């Protein structure tokens, strides 16, 4: 299972994913992961994730394959939740398993940074008064562009 991509409205169990990733590959000395979860912010009652079915999965698969190739990963995992979720619930888990730590750590940074700007997800905050769409952050664009430049340099 080298690339494990999932987009679903079901709750994500980050601990179960970690259990499935660690101790699995005798050649891997390193498993790194990132968990994004709903943060209490302002008058947030729930966070809703909208996406573009089919296109989302393809975008995540492409990012995963880029990471697998660039860092020679044994496994890459991206599980992203959609729909409505409460504070503390897991939005996304990204993980990478590799022989050495630098590959696993960098791949996880790459995957979450690129996912933010390259996969068609949109966040909407529900409050007691109504809802508003989360705006893209310049820092996210910059982080994603950093990796784009890195890959462009390497391919050049």
């Amino acid at each position, binding site marked *: 299972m080298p690339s494990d991509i999932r987009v679903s409205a079901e709750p994500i169990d980050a601990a179960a994913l970690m259990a499935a990733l660690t101790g699995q590959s005798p050649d891997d000395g390193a498993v790194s992961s990132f968990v994004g979860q709903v943060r209490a912010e302002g008058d947030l009652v729930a966070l809703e994730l909208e996406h573009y079915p089919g*296109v989302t999965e393809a975008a995540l698969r492409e990012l995963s394959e880029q990471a697998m190739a660039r860092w020679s990963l044994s496994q890459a995992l991206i599980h*992203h939740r959609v729909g409505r979720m409460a504070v503390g619930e897991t939005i996304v888990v990204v993980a990478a398993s590799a022989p050495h730590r630098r590959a696993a750590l960098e791949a996880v940074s790459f995957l979450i940074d690129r996912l933010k700007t390259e996969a068609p997800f949109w966040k909407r905050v529900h409050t007691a008064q109504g809802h508003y769409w*989360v705006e893209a952050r310049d820092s996210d664009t910059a982080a994603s562009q950093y990796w784009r430049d890195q890959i462009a340099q390497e391919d050049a």
Partner: protein
Amino acid sequence: MHVRIRYMAALRDRLGDGETAHDLPADVTDSEALIAHLTRSDAAAAALAAPEIRLIRNDRIVTRPSALEEGDRLAFCPPFTGG
């Protein structure tokens, strides 16, 4: 040329829900000409010209400007905010 258009997320709130069918004039052959065309009937569509607006064409994210073809299914997208 006939195309179908959807607006995603925040754009949907401003430009309308659901897929709409459009019969385009002959000179509208790419995404940027389409945006200009849409703006003539709804001034709010001018916002689509902003470079951060992404385009999904026939279930693929494409770079703009993108050429259009008969029967295209298009979705205009505000910047992605997942993760």
